[in-house]
């Protein structure tokens, strides 16, 4: 006889053991496809599925078609009927649903749409019947009615409360996303309804090429919302923190109007890249992501009744820490429950301290120092020594050109040898910490007057700090400050060109197009007047063209790029690429094609 006796187990325990066989596994699946002949057999409005008469098709997604239907018996009511497309084992889907059915009856929350029934059509497709909710996906609703950040956060709190209710009953949604949270107005109240609770588990399949894409290479599901552990098929246990992650993504979208990972890039890559992105790449800070959107950011801000700068400022000031904490790669670092997340939002609205720490908080600094202790200490020491050496040299040998060169070499080393490798190869946030630390300490040096008579030295340092902020840690506001100092301090007009260009770019990335245009036009105009022509000057033309393009001044951008090619080099690859990008944005595909043909075929040669 077996040495494992199960006779004494209760039904729930037996069900759990049985469900081990039903869990999707990581390496292949026993799922059977419904035959291809079943494709395109979706019933038309007017037809019946069991006791449901289909009224109209409400929508179609990658996995299902949703109908408005009328139930005739045992009760008459309007319902939504979700018919799962071919590609799944019907019995298994229904069996999984049956396992959940009992628990689903425990869900009784005004913000959760009820699931009434599940069954199989005559052609063998599984279907689910649920409460019909006449509403818009939450992000669409918020944008359409231009809800403010505060209104959005209050709505999000309601969503968290509903999710928390389900979690307390032991039910994980597994597919929280905007289209699964419908919002409607009811008696002057905005009410969210979460749909599909219990369905995701039934239709969840392992994340493989087959399950991610249809035969027509259409992407199934919404990879942008799934947690790293859902994407990583080696992880067997999915818990409530997966829903917390998805809520974090949702909050990110509600705040910024865009997904944390560029959907187009994510979807155009293969399954491994999708998994790698979700599992390994940290999402960009909402404020940074917003500022990089260009003209789109203005519209996003308008949808929130805000100016772009105000929105970015709001985000930077604490708010953005919340979605970032919810989306941590390690689940133990996320909020522990939906109610904790909801409390955090309430704290933010009340102005109370948050659980999520700011990147520069004592907690964060301590953590970074613990993690990278030797790195931080050594960089700090070298930084201090370099600057001290430079100051001493300048003080004693200012007039010697050789010493000036040495000072330049020292600061260059500080930038290229230390800071750049840190932000390129290590942790960007470590670099941010170090930069902030350096600026804070240097401020003291600048104020006490050590640099008073040596503006060039200070300018040099400011320039490097600016570049590190701009290109390294992408803190554009901080970069702007440093470049402004640089321009104020540096006496040589030649160097100001670099300053205008860099400051222009810092403005550009913040979406301050007017200011960016002014700085870059100043640089370009100075070069035009000077008559000097060097190939690297094309950089200024390209940057200004980018700024024009972002403001949809396509004609100006085209003229500028053509001028640059004539002036600097007829066929620089960079300029051609810029022209192609311009024509694509301008919706002139023939022109883009024409210029693409002029690009050197480097890959073909290499092959």
């Amino acid at each position, binding site marked *: 006889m077996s040495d494992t006796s199960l006779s004494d187990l209760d*039904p729930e325990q037996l*069900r759990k053991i049985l469900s081990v066989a039903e869990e999707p596994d990581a390496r292949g699946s026993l799922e059977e496809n419904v035959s291809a002949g079943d494709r395109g057999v979706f019933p038309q409005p007017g037809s019946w599925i069991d006791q449901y008469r289909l009224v109209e098709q409400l929508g179609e997604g990658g996995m299902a078609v949703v109908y408005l239907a009328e139930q005739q018996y045992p009760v008459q009511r309007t319902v939504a009927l979700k018919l799962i497309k071919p590609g799944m084992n019907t019995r298994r889907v229904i069996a999984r649903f049956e396992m959940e059915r009992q628990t689903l009856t425990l869900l009784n929350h005004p913000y959760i749409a009820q699931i009434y029934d599940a069954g199989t059509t005559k052609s063998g497709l599984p279907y689910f019947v649920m409460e019909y909710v006449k509403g818009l996906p939450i992000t669409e609703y918020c944008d359409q009615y231009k809800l403010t950040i505060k209104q959005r956060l209050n709505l999000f709190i309601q969503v968290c409360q509903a999710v928390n209710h389900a979690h307390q009953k032991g039910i994980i949604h597994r597919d929280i996303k905007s289209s699964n949270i419908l919002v409607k107005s009811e008696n002057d109240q905005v009410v969210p309804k979460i749909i599909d609770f219990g369905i995701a588990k039934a239709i969840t399949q392992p994340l493989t090429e087959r399950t991610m894409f249809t035969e027509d290479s259409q992407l199934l599901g919404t990879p942008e919302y799934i947690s790293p552990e859902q994407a990583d098929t080696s992880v067997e246990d999915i818990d409530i923190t997966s829903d917390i992650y998805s809520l974090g993504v949702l909050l990110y979208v509600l705040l910024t109007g865009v997904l944390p990972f560029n959907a187009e890039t994510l979807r155009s890559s293969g399954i491994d890249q999708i998994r790698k992105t979700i599992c390994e790449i940290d999402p960009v800070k909402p404020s940074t992501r917003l500022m990089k959107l260009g003209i789109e950011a203005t519209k996003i801000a308008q949808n929130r009744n805000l100016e772009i700068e105000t929105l970015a400022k709001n985000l930077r000031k604490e708010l953005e820490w919340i979605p970032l904490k919810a989306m941590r790669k390690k689940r133990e670092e996320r909020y522990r429950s939906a109610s904790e997340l909801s409390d955090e939002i309430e704290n933010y609205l009340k102005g109370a301290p948050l659980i999520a720490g700011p990147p520069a908080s004592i907690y964060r600094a301590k953590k970074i120092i613990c993690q990278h202790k030797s790195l931080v200490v050594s960089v700090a020491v070298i930084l201090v020594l370099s600057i001290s050496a430079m100051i001493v040299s300048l003080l004693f040998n200012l007039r010697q050109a050789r010493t000036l060169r040495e000072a330049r070499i020292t600061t260059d080393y500080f930038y290229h040898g230390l800071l750049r490798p840190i932000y390129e190869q290590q942790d960007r946030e470590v670099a941010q910490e170090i930069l902030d630390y350096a600026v804070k300490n240097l401020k003291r040096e600048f104020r006490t007057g050590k640099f008073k008579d040596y503006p060039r030295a200070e300018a040099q340092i400011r320039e490097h700090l600016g570049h590190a902020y701009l290109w390294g840690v992408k803190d554009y506001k901080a970069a702007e400050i440093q470049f402004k100092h640089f321009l104020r301090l540096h006496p040589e007009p030649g160097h100001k060109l670099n300053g205008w260009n860099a400051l222009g770019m810092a403005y550009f990335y913040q979406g301050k197009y007017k200011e960016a245009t002014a700085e870059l036009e100043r640089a370009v105009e100075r070069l035009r007047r000077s008559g000097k022509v060097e190939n690297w000057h094309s950089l200024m033309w390209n940057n200004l063209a980018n700024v024009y393009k972002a403001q949809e001044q396509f004609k100006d951008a085209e003229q500028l790029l053509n001028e640059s090619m004539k002036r600097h080099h007829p066929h620089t690859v960079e300029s051609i690429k810029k022209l192609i990008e311009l024509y694509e944005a301008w919706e002139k595909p023939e022109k883009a094609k024409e210029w693409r043909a002029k690009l050197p075929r480097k890959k073909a040669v290499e092959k």
Partner: protein
Amino acid sequence: MGGDQKRFLTTQWSLIEAINDDEKDGGHALVGSLLKRYWKPVYCYLRRLGFDNEKAKDITQAFFHDVVLGRNLIQRADKSLGRFRTFLLVALKRYVAAVRDKEFAQKRISQYKLVPLEKVDESGFSALRTELTPEDSYQYVWVSSLLEQVIELVKNDCYKDVKACHWHLFHERVLEPIIEKTDLPVMDELCSKYQIKDRQTASNMIVTVKRRFRKALRDSLRDLVSSDEEVDSELLEIMKFLPRIAQDHI
């Protein structure tokens, strides 16, 4: 269909035929296979029917001797109808009707010892502590026996393929927390205990056993029905059955 039918016939029903053919040599090895699967449901059905522990044990022994080893089961069996366990239950009900004749019971029962029931402790059957009907109790214990058998198959399979470590990992991480109602053990600790290099490897090992578990479950059910589709039906029925009886379970 011919192949399916053949396979079907080589399993449950033909096992009974083989038992009868082999009766002259005792037939105990073959009957052991059936007993293993069905004595617990039979015993629990009898207990829920109201027989006391000792009487239920005796009738279980006698039922298997008379009905399974005797020719009357085969004579009455109609292979085209229903599942074997349903058929067995019908046979059991008829047998019980006969056993109700006290004299018959006294005379026949105590001499058979096909099933080692001496140490059976009724407290080991949760189905006996509930308000389940005898039929539901029979079905419920059949499900638990089926899963016991599947688990044993997977375990033996792992040992045979020198995957004992896979088995232990699966048992501790997946089964034990369900059976003992304990928290999931920490994967890193399991890795260290079984000297597995990392969590990824351990996860893969568990997935390997899960797949074997799934296959063993389906194979075991496949032995009881005539087509792959019916395996799904069986599973679906079990899935519906367990939540239903959970309501009656204390």
